[in-house]
């Protein structure tokens, strides 16, 4: 699998580290809603199909990336730097 790093160009998967689900939204830090925090920390939808994920090009330019990947085919649909593309209130 190749990931097309916006800085380095296409690189082998071995150079990248998975950093987690990029679809989560962090609850308000002042929130005491236990269920919202439980969902944020532990619960994942595990979709079959397109999924937004954080990756880091650890074996290259070290940039944090948002990758849209198909979990069934591993096809990469989009790659963008996290800066400017992360979900509000969250980061890799």
């Amino acid at each position, binding site marked *: 699998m190749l990931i097309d790093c916006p*800085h*380095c*160009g296409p*690189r*082998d998967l*071995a*150079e990248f580290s998975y950093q987690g689900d990029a679809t989560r939204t962090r609850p308000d830090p002042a929130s005491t809603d236990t269920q919202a925090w439980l969902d944020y920390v532990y619960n994942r939808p595990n979709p079959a199909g397109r999924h937004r994920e954080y990756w880091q090009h*650890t*074996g*290259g*330019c*070290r*940039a944090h990336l948002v990758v849209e990947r198909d979990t069934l085919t591993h096809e990469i649909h989009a790659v963008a*730097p996290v*800066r400017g593309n992360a979900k509000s209130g969250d980061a890799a």
Partner: protein
Amino acid sequence: MVERASPLGSDFRPGSYGDFANGAEVTILELDRAGIVEATAWPGQEKALCEALAGACNLRLSAGSGNGAANREGVCAFNIGPGRFLVSGPRETLAGQLESAVPDTIGTVTDLSHGRTVLGIEGPKAEWVLAKLFALDFASAAFPVHSGCATAHHEIAVQIQRRGEKRFELYVSRSFARSFANTLRRAAEDVGYTIK
């Protein structure tokens, strides 16, 4: 200043190795770089950092992925990430020189002189040997002279700069240098190699 010891071990000795019956086709050597520095720009300051480095080191350096340059005094620099450059040279004063040239408002300068080892590989089969270790296109059209990149061989981070048509320089963390040098030597066995 304390003399820096090579991390490559006693078996990294001059001589020819591997299948050199018809002549060794690459040369592997440890390069003496007294100053190795990483300079990183704050977001939006990439161009300013590039200009500061170019001015301080007399380099024709431009921002952008993989761009690099070298001067006649042996100072070279190349881009290793967004707003990040690896600069090296023959003088230990390089880090201080760059700290003076790069104000805090532009970015940071980190002295890696004692943390990196620089290996050189040159010869007609240099691309062939490197292509065994890294999933990169080393053809000169894709990887021109002075350009560079950050990559990794398994978990060992390696920064590579092309310094000539048949010459590459590889920057490796000192603690991994012996292991990586052995891997490089193994990869060069079939073409024959000389250690200088």
